[in-house]
């Protein structure tokens, strides 16, 4: 009886992992900035908040990264496809200039790929 229970729990947990990380609801913490470019992104506890950013394509923008995580993992933010990177100061706003770019999805992350986010230009 107990054995069956443990197995069921195990399989359910595997399914839960698959569902939560891959199939589950797409992240909804996006923010669009219609007119101002002053969007602040909090860098804390392993996540960018918001981690999905919508910006109009075809013009430059400025993102404010506010890093509160002292671990070196979060020290840099990279937008590899845009060739943009910035070293984030601790407990301060760091301005990151986003150049004009084609509409599309541009992932951004920390050096270790622990912090991950997506910039959507549309």
């Amino acid at each position, binding site marked *: 009886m107990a054995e069956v229970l443990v197995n069921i729990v195990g399989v359910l947990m595997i399914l839960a992992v698959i569902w939560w990380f891959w199939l589950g609801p797409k992240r909804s913490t996006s923010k669009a900035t219609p007119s101002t470019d002053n969007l602040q992104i909090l860098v804390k*506890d392993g996540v960018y908040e918001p981690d999905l950013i919508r910006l109009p394509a075809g013009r430059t923008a400025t993102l404010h990264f506010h890093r509160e995580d002292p671990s070196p993992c979060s020290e840099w933010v990279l937008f590899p496809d845009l060739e943009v990177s910035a070293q984030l100061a601790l407990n301060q706003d760091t301005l990151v200039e986003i150049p004009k770019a084609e509409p599309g999805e541009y992932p951004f992350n920390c050096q270790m790929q622990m912090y991950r986010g997506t910039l959507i230009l549309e």
Partner: protein
Amino acid sequence: MTKEQQSAPTVFRLSGVNCAGCINKIETAVKTVAGVTDARVNLSDKTLSVYGSAEAESCIEAVRSAGYGAELLRSSEREQRAEQREQTQRHYRQQLWRSAFALGVGVPMMAWGLITDRVSVNTPVEQLAWGVMGLITLAVLVFCGGNFFSGAWKALRHHNATMDTLVALGTGTAWLFSMIVVLVPHLLPEAARHVYFEASAMIIGLISLGQALEIRARGRTSAAVEKLLELQDTSARVLRDGREVDLPIEQVQQGDQLRVRPGEKIPVDGTVLEGRSLVDESMLTGEPVPVKKAEGDSLAAGTLNKNGSLLFRADKVGSDTRLAQIIEMVKNAQSSRVPIARLADKISGIFVPVVMIIALVAALVWFNLGPDPRVAHMLVVLTSVLIIACPCALGLATPMSVMVGVGKGAEYGVLVRNGKALQQSCTLDVLVVDKTGTLTEGSPRLTDIDSDGDSDELLRLVASLEQGSEHPLAEAIVTAAHDKNLELQSPANFEAITAHGVSGDIGGSRVLLGNTKLMQKEAISLDAWSERAAKLAEAGRTVMYAAVDGKLRGIIAVADPIRADAQAAIERLSKLGLRIEMLTGDNHGSAEAVARQLGIDRVHAELLPEDKEGIVAELQKKGERVGMVGDGINDAPALARADVGFAIGAGTDVAIESADVTLMRSSLHGVANAVELSRATLHNIKQNLFGAFIYNTLGIPIAAGVLYPITGMLLSPIVAGGAMALSSLTVVSNANRLRFFKPSEAR
């Protein structure tokens, strides 16, 4: 406007400001502070500028009372760095303390288990004793490992999984299971009443220790930028109202006149107005020999004035100086991605959920098929797999090496634009080199003067004639005459005959200087001179005949001399396996002569600037990876077309922005340095990737227990924790070995 307002404002960084309403509130509040003459908020960069003589503290207090936050803005990057370093130090010490506390709890518990082997819960006394230990361990988890748990929770809510997730899950599982054992031991089979509190504490301690050591090792990887920042002076001696005053560097303005004394650093970019000196530019260019500077020459911030006093005009200040641009570029390149890392990036992106699944599957396998005690084995396997599988090392493998490699390049005057350029530089087949300025010095010089009489007198005559001409060859002749201190006269009836030469009257005699055609046209016989001229032409020189009053008096040869270091550099490049082809707009004769002297096989001569791009494209069509070396301005299309464009002798800002690799000195040695550096870096990256990959591919199966049938033992979660702490440390340390890279030229 009062006098005070004109002086520089004190600038604060604001927080919590969102709208125009806030601006008003803050400005009004600050203006009431004694000594403030004006206060202005800039909403877009969230700063507050305060004019007047007020204390910074009282301004901050005023902003705070209005409901916002403010702090003094550090203007200089170096101060920011210092602050950052201090914060890093603080974090380092904090991690060390966490680690010490966690290990302080974990090690005695582990020792107890090893010595007495009494880690099971069977009696109420044991229940009580281990319950207390469990609570102590909980304190460790909260105080030393709390950041892992909060990070894991937050990431989880974002459908994200990180290293924190793995650590929190691993230690959390071990603790929870142990607590269940303590609370309800009778529900579990006797063999599984084992507690793992020591594992939780030890894992937290080891990982914190690993992170602390990593922070320290990382500090060294960014040493290059720090070194560049230190080149920036903090003050400058500026001429104001006829007096020399020391001003902070931020207050120097474009157009100011500055003075540097011997032994001082040049504070900003500028042009020499007065004085002569030798300037050591090696810190920017890697060029070991100091450069002579006199009126009209340009100076770069951060270089060292050696022996003379110079008065100069500031042309570029602040972030416009070349040094600032270099720092910016290095910082950008340091954090860029290398194409080789794509796969590792993808893997580490989805790795954590995959590991969670692997851990669960392995646990179930052990539970269903494994030997007794199955529950205990299941737990050990689950915890060990979770802990050992952190993909940090994989994620760090490339950025750390790129960081050190790019920084090292800057030290040798090699500015790499991004990781891609770094990777491509190490697999080039052909190097296409623009002759002028790279293989040769770029300015023609008078090499031979043969005459049947006084050759100085002949030189004086032709130089006088050429004074008015703007031809580069003319400049070489005039310079040679100046060097010999010959007194020149102004020519009368000067005439430039297109594609032939020049003529004019000097002191009553008619002087002609030009090629064979000119002499034929004027019916002057070349006699024995033509043989001598042919010999010189064969050696790659441009030969001109000089005639005075209708009679040939001698020949003058001009050539663009080969750079002293070109030969050695080409040998180095050939040793690196690169084939070299030369491009030039010059005629075949002189091009071939240079190529022969340097041992270059293939020459493309008599090219128009637009032909160069075509040649690069043609080589690429044959499947070769082409590097192009040029001076950045007229070669721009070819540089852009090539797989790697090396802009050489980059005084120009355009080149810094557009080339893949910018070489600060006009020598091919720079290209060889760049190639050697890129190979060393890529080699280092591969080592890192291999190490990280091996670590994960071997670590996970071992943790999952594949060795159990052979060894009869499972990997302890504590060992897994130690291995995990070591993995990223190994990668960071290996990347740091690149700091000892030296190009073969300097060895």
